[in-house]
């Protein structure tokens, strides 16, 4: 039999690269980023300690910080519920017995795995004010559509619509959850005369609450981290990213611009840590609340 020592050796041999990667590409950068958040650093001159100035500037003076927080929160508050509701709705439909369910599932899931740079480019063309597909379809119904992508009012709703196209991820997770609900429960409820809503409310919802909760938390975290969507939206129109008029200046995009356009790397690190703190808080909440529900079925 193997003694303990070779086992330890094999463990480090096998897990070593991954643990080294963890130390080099996660742990150390995380700590250095914390340090940089207290520095002024522009990649060319060495970092210079400036205490809490970055945080103070962000919270009190930075003209872009709060607008980007607002854009991100509005997006999260609107997109996450819509996306979860759409995902749950379609998952419920797909969970009905019937032919061709696999095909429909594939159709609904597909858009969520496509590269966002490509799908945003397609949607920017569709949402064009003059001759865009959407406005042409609206015109068939006698409606004159606005300049969707260049209007500060409509740009964010357009981005929400684009991101809703990718609700396939939470949908498949819901489907997985729905399939664990025993059919007998529905049949029993049916015999008891419970209507569709009552069955959903009292059987389905409680039983899929762990996945619902998971989707909500992941939806929130995903919305807080939005970058590709917003960057591609600006780039596909030749706009300054975040435009028009900061209407799509997401937190992640603002951070990227502070770091890699204006080279305020210290300030961007402070922004990163504020984001990280919020995500940690959400994760902790997830763990606290989720512990009651989620059961690990190994």
């Amino acid at each position, binding site marked *: 039999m193997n003694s303990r020592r070779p086992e330890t050796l094999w463990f480090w041999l096998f897990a070593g690269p991954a643990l080294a990667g963890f130390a080099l590409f996660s742990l150390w950068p995380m700590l250095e980023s914390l340090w940089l958040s207290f520095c*002024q650093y*522009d*990649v*060319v*001159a060495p970092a210079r300690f400036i205490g809490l100035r970055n945080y103070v*500037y962000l919270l*009190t*003076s930075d003209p872009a910080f709060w607008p980007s927080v607002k854009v991100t929160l509005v997006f999260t508050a609107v997109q996450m519920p819509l996306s979860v509701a759409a995902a749950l709705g379609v998952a419920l439909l797909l969970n009905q017995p019937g032919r061709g369910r696999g095909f429909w599932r594939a159709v609904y899931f597909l858009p969520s795995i496509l590269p966002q740079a490509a799908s945003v480019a397609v949607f920017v063309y569709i949402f064009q004010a003059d001759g865009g597909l959407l406005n042409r379809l609206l015109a068939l119904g006698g409606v004159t559509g606005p300049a969707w992508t260049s209007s500060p009012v409509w740009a964010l709703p357009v981005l929400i619509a684009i991101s809703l196209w990718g609700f396939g991820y939470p949908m498949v997770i819901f489907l997985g959850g729905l399939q664990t609900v025993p059919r007998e429960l529905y049949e029993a409820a049916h015999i008891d005369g419970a209507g569709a809503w009552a069955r959903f409310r009292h059987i389905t919802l409680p039983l899929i609450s762990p996945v619902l909760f998971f989707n909500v938390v992941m939806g929130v975290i995903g919305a807080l981290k939005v970058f590709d969507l917003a960057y591609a939206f600006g780039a596909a129109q030749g706009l300054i990213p975040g435009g028009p008029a900061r209407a799509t200046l997401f937190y992640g995009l603002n951070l990227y611009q502070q770091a890699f356009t204006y080279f305020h790397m210290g300030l961007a690190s402070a922004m990163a840590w504020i984001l990280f703190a919020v995500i940690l808080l959400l994760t902790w909440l997830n763990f606290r609340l989720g512990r009651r529900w989620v059961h690990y079925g190994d």
Partner: protein
Amino acid sequence: MLTRHRELLLWLVIGLLAAAGFWWAGRSRAPAAEEGRKVITWIVFISPLRDLYEQQIAEFERQHPDITVRIIWVPQSEYHMKFKTLAAAGQTPDMFYSGDVWLSYLMPFMADLSPLVKRDAGEIGLDDYFPEIRAAMQHAGRYYVVPEAVNISLLYYNRRLFRAAGLAEPSPEWTWDDLVRAGQKLTRPATAGDPGVWGCSRMEGWWGEWLTYIRQAGGTVFSPDGRRCVLDSPEAITGLRFYLEKSSKYHISAPGGHEPLNGFVNGRVAMLVVGHVNFWLNYNQVPDLDWDVQLLPAGPHSRTGGEVAIAGYSLSRTCRHPEATWALMKFMTRPEVIRHVVARGGVAVRRSIAEAEMRDPRGRSHPQNLAAVYGQLRYSLPIPRHPNFIEIMLQVVQPEVDRMILGELSPEETGRRAAGAVNAYLATFAPPAP
């Protein structure tokens, strides 16, 4: 089952493939330096001149067989980002596109060209550059840029709309009042079937126009030492107010956020203040656009205030082949190239070429008033020289100006808020003491 040595062989193949992959992944994209061959890197943003540049570089390489020029093309919107990223990675390009907007920003990377410029003053024809251009090539008395082109702020106007309104064309003596009076006569409200005409455009989302008014009213952005923002001065507020009142009081411009797209090209806007010479080419492609230019109308303090922004070449401090790169810079800015640039609808930085052009306009369509183009130089100023000027203007000040033209802020509040925001910015990102 695989035999043991076959298995070993399999892992060996995987290892070799991986090694090859890493070699390819880590391969430097720069051409290898050969013995006796100099490689010069040049970063430039993509522009309609791309083919001209490529021709010139090919010609230069033909004349200098020992030099290879590697061009790094980047989209204009990402130019400064790509530049600094390369600099941070220790790959500062030897020669780079620079000029007024970039001069302060890229200053830390620029070599002082004064010794070279003075040594070769005769060869490059230093006296042939307009004095205002020579001033723009320098910072604190040292040369940093050799220019290829220049943008000058001007008053653009649509001659057909002036004729239709029965108005005389703008004169060099015009003031803001004349602009307003003509604008009001040119403005025609939209009716069913007629999109209407605005007397004057208003450039939104950019500092060009409002900064011109501020400077023509006697204001400016930074205090002389560059440490404080003075956009809250009465002069600056006068300039901001004129920018606002073009729509709110005089109704010669569209309300904030309603500026017609490409209005000047479509004949929906009769006059354009400031503009950009890069658009000449586009204007001249529009069949019925009969346009010309005039000196900017004078403000309450002076006519001076429009910008003169040169674009040209700078040499990196870390360049390994300064003489070869300097030869390339001279080659790319020699009169023959400047003539090509002008022929494509640009403004000459050299007096001899400008004068030749004025004597013989080669049947050029527009603008015909070249006297105004070159006359305006005298009333133009370089862009305020702060390393983060672009960022401060677009990210810190512009949002307040946007709110002003949307009617949310008065000019006084705008000036006060903008100055406060810039001063907070300067306090946080003060450049480290040299």
